[in-house]
């Protein structure tokens, strides 16, 4: 039988299963902690840092933190909000994110977070990196311009043999996530769609599958990100 722990988030007393992921525990208690690299069902990585909260006064990523009895959590201080906004701005400035013509516009988590945090013009200079569009695969397109290197695809997308379809290539600021030609051979349409859906931005696309969801019915058209948990 699961044991429950008592802890506080922003002064509110919360209850969750011991060892639960803080992001999920907060959600269960009606508190939204934004995430980007985190994805339900795959091991957390803590790489994007957008879920950073104060646990007992110390900054920690909520996706890699487990709840324990008596912990005090602050999810929303002016400093944390500013920090999150900066993370979003940096991700926009580092890549080439042209929302108007992106297939994921309206369903993109980065775009949705930018709206939630009212990002208008980034405070950081745009880098305009020269990046390619990888389109050799018969069912997938990898647009490196839009990749935020969250690794969701590497961690979460597997073929029938349990092999990863995506892998890191190069190093440092040149790092890219590539489609593995061997493991991605003969993938089903359903798996290709799963890869596109798991990508929080428009970096993984299905061939010829863009804009088929009309404006008004896209993921965040009617329901801003996180509003299902907390307004």
């Amino acid at each position, binding site marked *: 039988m699961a044991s429950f722990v008592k802890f506080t988030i922003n002064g509110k007393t919360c209850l969750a299963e011991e060892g639960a992921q803080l992001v999920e525990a907060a959600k269960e208690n009606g508190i939204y902690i934004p995430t980007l690299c985190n994805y339900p069902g795959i091991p957390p990585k803590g790489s994007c840092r957008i879920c950073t909260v104060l646990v007992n006064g110390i900054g920690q990523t909520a996706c890699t933190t487990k709840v324990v009895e008596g912990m005090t959590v602050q999810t929303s201080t002016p400093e944390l909000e500013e920090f999150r906004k900066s993370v979003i701005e940096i991700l926009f400035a580092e890549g080439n994110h042209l929302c108007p013509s992106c297939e994921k516009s309206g369903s993109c988590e980065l775009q949705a977070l930018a709206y939630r945090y009212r990002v208008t013009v980034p405070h950081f200079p745009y880098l305009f990196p020269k990046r390619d*569009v990888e389109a050799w695969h018969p069912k997938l397109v990898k647009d490196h311009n839009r990749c935020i290197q969250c690794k969701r695809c590497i961690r979460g997308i597997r073929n029938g043999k349990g092999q990863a379809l995506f892998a890191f290539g190069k190093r440092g600021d040149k790092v890219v996530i590539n489609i593995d030609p061997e493991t991605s051979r003969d993938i089903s349409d359903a798996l290709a769609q799963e890869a596109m859906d798991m990508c929080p931005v428009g970096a993984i696309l299905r061939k010829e599958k863009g804009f088929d969801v009309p404006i008004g019915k896209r993921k965040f058209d009617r329901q801003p990100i996180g509003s299902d948990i907390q307004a």
Partner: protein
Amino acid sequence: MSKKIVIEPVTRVEGHGKVTIHLDDQGNVAQSRLHIVEFRGFERFVQGRPYWEAPVLVERLCGICPVSHHLAAAKAVDVIAGAGTGDGLTPTAEKIRRLMHYGQMFQSHTLHFFHLASPDLLFGYDAPPEQRNVIGVALANRELATQAVLMRKYGQEVIAATAGKKIHGTGAIPGGVNKSLTIEERDTLLKGRAPLNADKMIAWSQGALAFFKDYYKKNKAFIDGFSQFPSNHLSLVRKDGALDLYHGVLRAVDAAGKKILNDVDYQDYLSHLREEVRSWSYMKFPFLKILGKEKGWYRVGPLARLNTADFIPTPLAQKEFEAFKAVTGGKPNNMCMHTHWARLIEVLHSAEVIRDLLLDSDITGTDLVTKGKWQPVGVGVIEAPRGTLMHHYRVNEDDLITMANLIVSTTHNNEPMNRAVNCVAKAMMTGQKEITEPMMNAVEVAIRAYDPCLSCATHAYGQMPLEVSLYDATGKLISQRRK
């Protein structure tokens, strides 16, 4: 002493351009030019993108007629996706696209006539600038101004219902559309709360035509004679010769009405058209290959369309078309200011088509997309509000665009607009010691008749800062006037 007159920016047109007029020592017009001073670069930066992005990417060319670019690109990528040209789509997809396009035509033409052109007609091109603008129209004729705003709103609502939003929607996708109309959307447009319904739009379109025809009766000499010159005319027409703004074959007639391009498939446009580059403008000069650079230039747009089409397939507009054709005895109409008349006939036609499409059960259908055998090249042509619009894409085996060629309506009208400037400059400025503001506006009136979209994105109307500088033959500034 020779003079150089510069009109910059040209006002009450879409985008930015300037006019230069050189007068020689005797005060005769030695040279005149309409310069396009903007560079957009869409043909280049669409390269390397997946082809299905093209309709959504290139529509950002324009905030007034994004639907035209969206659909021209969609028609081109239909070919690449194997859905054929025009008639390959499902009935629902084809009719939703038509509805979107005629909504676009309705709102854009309304915007141009009422907001941009009507101040010149209501008050005269020589009226004070502070009156000669859309605010002046609203103050002088409240009912007309209200109708103008609501007609444009209706057209935008049609676009929003079919494309998802009023500006820069995503309705057309390769091989079809991503939505049809719900019953509720259809009923709102068809018989929504007055005055925003289809029948009222038809009635108001007739009112706008009556307004123009009344003005014409009183100002026949001006409307007939202002910037009038013979030209060829080009547009799409339906296979049976009917006016069709969404799809058809390319037809061109000369100034006397002889067919010089006889209903050819636009996939083959490169066999019939060429583009010339001139060093002083960012806009190219297209011409009909068969006639060459000197004689092959032509007009596009409402006037050209009514010159190439044999009839209009809606009854009220057909009746107006017959009256329009009677003025020239059935021959092509080469009178520049009659473009406004032709435009208003198209407004009425668009309203009729919108009403008919809303009454068609296919408009709420669910069969939205067709696909076929992939092709490496696609050409899409549509009749945009300002005229024939061509999109041509080539893709590699990975579906990425390797080449794009866009010939927009205003580009087709480049040479005619330059001729119009020359025509008016000669008539108004020859031998004049002083160049007045009304003379400059007269040049703009001629350009405005073509409803040019110089950047396809920006908007400027009302009184804009306009500066005219007079230079002597050595280039020394003699005098300067601002309005």
